[in-house]
């Protein structure tokens, strides 16, 4: 496919809606997804562009081109505290995707470029649900473009670095207090922004059985300026609150530090462990500043996210030239604070169970299939400033498929 067509496709697809770790998504490769989203200690193809750029100088073949996507089917259930009131979200299907192209231009130097969606969020509650004044629906889509270079210093050490251009957009709607008897007041905010970051990693392979990977992906600040705000208001109120307004807001996409180890006791089996430290603590509040009527409309909404540590374990078994199977498990604690929990990002402690299979019809072509199943820990959460408390529970099912052509 031409690069321009690829970019158009990229811009049309939605971001993901996995609420495990805040609004972070790690479905950037099906081998990795099959193994519990482990990736920093693995190498061999272009997918390392995301998980650990150092691997681009350790590919199995000279060239590697990969593309794939997943379908996120997620539902969050909510039960209002001390009430028979219950409701669930009706989320659109999230479609994170990746496209990678990489090549070993010399024996030691690898380069590549990729487009992928590492963050996303999409929640759709009923417009008149009991929390509509907090959120009715939200859709956040982010994609990164990352040109990457990787250098194999020697058999033991490889380094890699990528520069990230991030493009993000968000759209959210919520009800407001100013309405007519027949039309609830509403506020719709949308905006987009471009920002920058980087991704650096190192791979250490002391021998053929072990490999250790360390990767650091920088924080990317999505700073929205002059986003569009549209208020649905009664006619007589329009003289006080303008219907069309502009807003500024900033949302941080946190930094990640990944450390992992893979062990290959033989040719067929790979076992891996990984820790991801996510620097969510930078997200302490979500502020909205409006151009018109700031004294009336500005708000600072506490979030108080905390840094988290994700624990992963996974394995891969090469059955034969045709088939490889995978399985994995992880525990992803939520970064959210239990007193500043908003239903626009209903992120709970999550257990992930994954499985995957690769089919290689030819030596160069592989079809990678993965399935990730997420179960959350049912929890009572509040948004204390609005006295909004209830029990939340979630389930997410993510099948995915990708194609890799390595030659």
């Amino acid at each position, binding site marked *: 496919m031409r690069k321009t067509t690829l970019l158009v496709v990229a811009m049309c697809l939605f971001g993901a809606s996995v609420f495990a770790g805040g609004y972070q998504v790690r479905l950037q490769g099906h081998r990795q997804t099959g193994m519990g989203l482990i990736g920093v200690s693995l190498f061999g193809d272009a997918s390392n562009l995301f998980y650990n750029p150092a691997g681009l100088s350790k590919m199995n073949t000279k060239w590697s081109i990969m593309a794939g996507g997943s379908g996120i089917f997620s539902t969050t259930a909510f039960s209002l505290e001390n009430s028979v009131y219950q409701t669930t979200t009706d989320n659109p299907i999230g479609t994170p995707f990746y496209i990678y192209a990489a090549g070993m231009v010399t024996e030691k130097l690898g380069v590549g470029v990729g487009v992928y969606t590492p963050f996303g969020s999409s929640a759709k509650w009923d417009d008149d649900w009991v929390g509509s004044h907090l959120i009715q629906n939200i859709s956040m889509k982010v994609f990164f473009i990352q040109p990457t270079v990787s250098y194999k210093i020697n058999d033991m050490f490889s380094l890699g670095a990528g520069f990230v251009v991030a493009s993000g957009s968000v759209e959210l709607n919520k009800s407001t207090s100013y309405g007519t008897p027949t039309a609830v007041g509403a506020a719709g905010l949308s905006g987009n922004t471009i920002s920058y970051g980087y991704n650096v990693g190192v791979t250490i392979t002391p021998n053929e059985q072990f490999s250790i990977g360390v990767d650091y992906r920088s924080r990317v600040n999505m700073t929205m300026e002059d986003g569009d705000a549209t208020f649905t208001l*009664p006619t007589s109120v329009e003289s006080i609150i303008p219907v069309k307004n502009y807003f500024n807001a900033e949302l941080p996409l946190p930094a990640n530090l990944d450390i992992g180890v893979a062990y290959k006791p033989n040719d067929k089996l790979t076992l891996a462990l990984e820790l991801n430290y996510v620097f969510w603590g930078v997200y302490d509040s979500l502020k909205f500043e409006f151009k018109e009527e700031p004294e009336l409309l500005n708000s600072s909404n506490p979030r108080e996210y905390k840094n988290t540590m994700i624990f992963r374990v996974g394995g891969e078994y090469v059955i034969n030239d045709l088939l490889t199977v995978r399985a994995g498990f992880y525990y992803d604690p939520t970064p959210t604070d239990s007193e500043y929990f908003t239903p626009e990002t209903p992120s709970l402690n999550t257990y992930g169970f994954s499985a995957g299979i690769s089919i290689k019809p030819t030596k160069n072509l592989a079809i990678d299939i993965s399935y990730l199943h997420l179960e959350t820990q049912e929890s009572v959460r509040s948004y204390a400033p609005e006295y909004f408390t209830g029990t939340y529970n979630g389930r997410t099912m993510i099948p995915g498929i990708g194609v890799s052509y390595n030659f």
Partner: protein
Amino acid sequence: MKLRNILLLLALGMLFACEPKIDDFTTTSGGADFSKYVAIGNSLTAGYADKDLYLSGQENSYPAILAYQFEAAGGGEFKQPLMFDEYGFGNRLLLDAAKPGPVPAGVAPDQRNFTSIAAEGPFNNMGVPGAKSFHLVPGAEAYSALNPYYARFAAIPGTSTVLEESVAQNPTFFTCWIGNNDVLGYALAGGAADSITPTALFQMAVGAVLQGMTANGAKGAIANIPNVTDIPFAQFMNTQVPYNGLLMDTTQAAQLTYAYQQFELFLASQGITWDYPEFSPGLNPFMVTDETLPLPAPFNVRPMEQGELFLLTLATDSLPMGMGSVNAMGGNIVPWGIPSQYVLLSNELEEIDQAVVDYNEIIAGLATQFDLALVDMNAKFKTVANQGMEVDGIMFTTAFISGKTFSLDGVHMTAQGYSVAANFFIEAINDKYGSGITTVSPRLYPGIYYYQ
């Protein structure tokens, strides 16, 4: 191969188990049985607000809130005689951001609001806007034809009574909040019309209601009456126009004093000796019409006393034209006392306050006699009026509109106000019957934010 089959089955199984589940919330009903709940009362029970009965007001009425909270403790269906839209009978008031006070909505209501929905009944919410105590009981059969709010859902208008229709539903639990209109009608008319229900009649009527409702072992709660003079309808205008708001300079004061001296002379010529006050430069009390004075109209006027109250309906645009001093627009100059329907005079205030005390004594006695939970609305509203009441970060006061408690008619509550009233019922019911009904947050109900 076997492993692949297992994985496939696992995958399929997970795909079909789509939605996460949360256990249903349940709680104890204690010694009460909430399976069939009937609410008896007046406009406060019906969910009337902003000068009309409309759909969302009814959906947020305190009985509807109670019924929803009862569901977790075995509560059953709760049917209400719902209007078809947000405009009821066409009297609803709204806010207009460009105007200082509420304005009529000016929207033609759904015509079905004016037709009978008796066929959809029986209705668990038997609140009838306008009802006084004796309107609920046998003897008042004509009321179900005469009051359009009741006529639209009464089983047989002209024959039905609220008590009969309520008892016929075999309720296991009921609430009763009646008596406000027995004194309110008189108060809202400034003492110029209507009359306070005599206490003996009040006792008989409410006693009959409770007798009928408890006959088959139903349990229940009865609420007493707040001080009628604490509502914005009686309080707000006095923050805008004080009793001594007649401001005059030296010349005007001298002229007005002279005019009233002429009135004294005129009365003397009719054989009536009377002494009107003199007026001074600065603030003077308005002259109000007092029908108890032994003087012929329009001379039966006197200075307003501190503590007497202007009602929300005061025609303020007549004040600069002379209302409260003299009418000089015709050929003759005559006194122009503020008409009595706009003022609550001291003797009227005394009668009203005494009636509320008397009614509440009767209600307390009946609650004991029939072993019911007593909801002390009078005490709760006193708190709201005197110091305000904070619930979930919302400060409820009796200020007009900004106080969040009372709706745009200054008499009935907002949905948030009704939710707090529901919580008062819940606390009293749990206290009496050991039930675990949970309260609601007023944050989840609309305040007064409806605009044109």
